């Protein structure tokens, strides 16, 4: 049986932990708001980019001089999985669920006899994947030192990807991130980056006939690499919002659990204290009766 002092210490330590998780929850809530705003602010750019590219791409017939970023290499043998996770933990199942989703896809592809490689953004996913697929991770981009995510970060990643694509290291690139739905729901999502895909245009919306300057193919050559960067940027922002959402609910749970534990421990503490008092009283009374 733990002594009263042990119990007191235990309660104090749980209280300290509760304070930390509470503080982390509030910090995550504040940062989540900022991350959400950033994700919203980035939306118009990505949407416009998508619609213009979709417009051009749908009007083009695939030929031999179509940029490879759009048409693909024509093969489906080597896959690159770009897995975006966070740099820090204490965020519930956030990283695990992204990694699990990527892993399921990877195992499916490997089962079909395809060649799978990983490109990791964020330390946490790298640590998990490294154990499962040693030697298949080609690169890790560490964003730990980045304070606010800028478009520059996304462009650097996109440049590395495109560079590897141009060297013929892979045929298909898929991006994995967590789509932010709400604080309690972040959905691991896969999106094909290369070859580029565009949502089907809504029926009935007549596309205006545009004049292009320079040629359509040149615009495509200029825009497709940019589009990769934009998609990566969007994924990073979504991921960040998801991370804070996930962290917030994880810390909320932790705070509540700590509260429960404090209640339970306090009850045990009080019971033990009373039992001790009762025991002492019995001892005094039986001592007095013996006289």
């Amino acid at each position: 049986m733990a002594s009263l002092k042990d119990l007191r210490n235990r309660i104090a330590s749980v209280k300290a932990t509760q304070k930390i998780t509470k503080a982390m929850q509030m910090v995550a809530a504040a940062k989540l708001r900022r991350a959400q705003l950033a994700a919203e602010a980035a939306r118009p750019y990505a949407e416009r980019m998508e619609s213009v590219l979709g417009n051009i791409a749908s009007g083009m017939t695939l030929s031999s001089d179509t940029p490879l970023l759009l048409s693909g290499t024509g093969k489906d043998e080597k896959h690159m999985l770009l897995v975006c996770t966070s740099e820090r933990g204490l965020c519930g199942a956030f990283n695990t669920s992204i990694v699990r989703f990527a892993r399921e896809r990877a195992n499916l592809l490997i089962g079909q006899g395809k060649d799978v490689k990983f490109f990791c953004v964020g330390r946490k996913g790298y640590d998990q994947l490294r154990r499962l697929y040693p030697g298949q991770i080609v690169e890790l981009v560490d964003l730990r030192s980045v304070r606010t995510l800028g478009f520059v970060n996304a462009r650097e990643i996109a440049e590395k990807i495109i560079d590897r694509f141009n060297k013929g290291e892979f045929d298909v690139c898929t991006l994995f991130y967590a789509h932010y739905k709400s604080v309690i729901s972040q959905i691991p999502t896969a999106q094909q980056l290369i070859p580029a895909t565009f949502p089907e245009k809504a029926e009935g919306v007549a596309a205006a006939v545009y004049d292009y300057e320079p040629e359509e193919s040149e615009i495509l050559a200029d825009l497709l690499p940019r589009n990769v960067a934009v998609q990566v940027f969007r994924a990073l922002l979504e991921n960040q919002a998801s991370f804070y959402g996930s962290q917030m609910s994880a810390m909320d749970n932790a705070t509540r659990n700590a509260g429960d534990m404090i209640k339970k421990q306090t009850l045990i503490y009080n019971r033990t204290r009373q039992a001790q008092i009762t025991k002492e009283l019995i001892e005094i009374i039986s001592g007095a009766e013996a006289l």
Partner: protein
Amino acid sequence: MATFSFELVSPERLVFSGQVTEVIVPGTEGEFGVTAGHAPFISTLSAGILTVKGDGADKRLFVRGGFAEANPAGLTVLAEQATPVETFDRAALQQLIKDAQEDVADARSDESRQKAERNLADLQQVAAILDLGAAPAAH
């Protein structure tokens, strides 16, 4: 004068949105002006100064990388970077010029060298314009 809606969007945020009378855009194949009722048109951007004419004084912004889309609904410019000239940092421009010079030196194929040289020339022109713009304000 007839106005039309103009949006300037950078990846991070919506930089400008409103009704304007004329916008001058630095396109890859030369500057072009857009007024209300412009024909549907898409062009890529080169590094340069974008001028917005509307109510009051003209706004001038440094833009780089991206494209402009004019359609009956208005004009949308998507630029990788869009900074008002007033807050634009000269040191940043110098850095860009230096990067561009390195790109020219590093370029392997003729095509990429041509591109890099164009970019460098554009940036130097911006620097020249900005310095000219700054001179009258100095005295």
